[in-house]
């Protein structure tokens, strides 16, 4: 199951989706919001998605994992909207008969999520805010 939501993510529920008697290895990755970034004290974060496309891209990544590692049991959930520090922004769960494939495929899926899925993160910190990944000059906007 793959979805994007503004509701808090429940890692156990998402992990349960990939737990099967035929899977000897289950890996659940949690992305959590951090309070310190590039020397700035982050107050909270805002995630924005191009939702239908982001879901399509997550499905594409799941298909790639299925083709490369034969892993069928994949669940990915990404949260959007305002997140406080320490909340879970992303859950990627994989179930596989053996651990090696599950670790490799999880790493691969994470790298792909970071590069092709249209979801953006804005850090709001003391003294301003900045879209992360937006490295163009002037991407940082001072607080009003």
């Amino acid at each position, binding site marked *: 199951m793959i979805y994007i939501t503004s509701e808090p993510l429940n890692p156990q529920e998402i992990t349960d989706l990939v737990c099967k008697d035929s899977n000897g290895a289950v890996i659940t990755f949690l*992305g959590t919001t951090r309070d310190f970034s590039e020397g700035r004290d982050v107050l909270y974060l805002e995630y924005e998605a191009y939702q239908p496309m982001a879901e399509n891209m997550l499905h594409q990544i799941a298909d790639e994992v299925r083709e490369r590692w034969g892993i069928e049991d994949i669940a990915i959930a990404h949260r959007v909207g305002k997140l406080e520090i320490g909340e879970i922004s992303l859950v990627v769960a994989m179930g596989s008969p053996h651990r090696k494939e599950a670790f490799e495929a999880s790493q691969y899926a994470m790298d792909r*999520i970071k590069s092709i899925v249209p*979801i953006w993160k804005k850090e709001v910190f003391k003294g301003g805010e900045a879209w*992360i990944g937006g490295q*163009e000059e002037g991407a940082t906007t001072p607080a009003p």
Partner: protein
Amino acid sequence: MKVSVRFFALYRERAGVSQTEVDLPEGTTPKELLTRLRSSYSSLPLSDSVLIAVNSEYVNPEAPLHEGDEVAFIPPVSGGET
């Protein structure tokens, strides 16, 4: 032909809108639309290498657009956390 243009994240804030409709000559490519948007929205930091999606799929920026297409300029992404 009319196409809709979507802006997200940094581009949405800089453009001041999340969506707009533009009337273009038949056969216009995303790359040509990019040039046009740069002059309409001078504060939009669109580089030549920006990723472009049409109808929710990444496309070749030289492939012509069609009536009713939804074009999105994709700012650098940061899904999830490291």
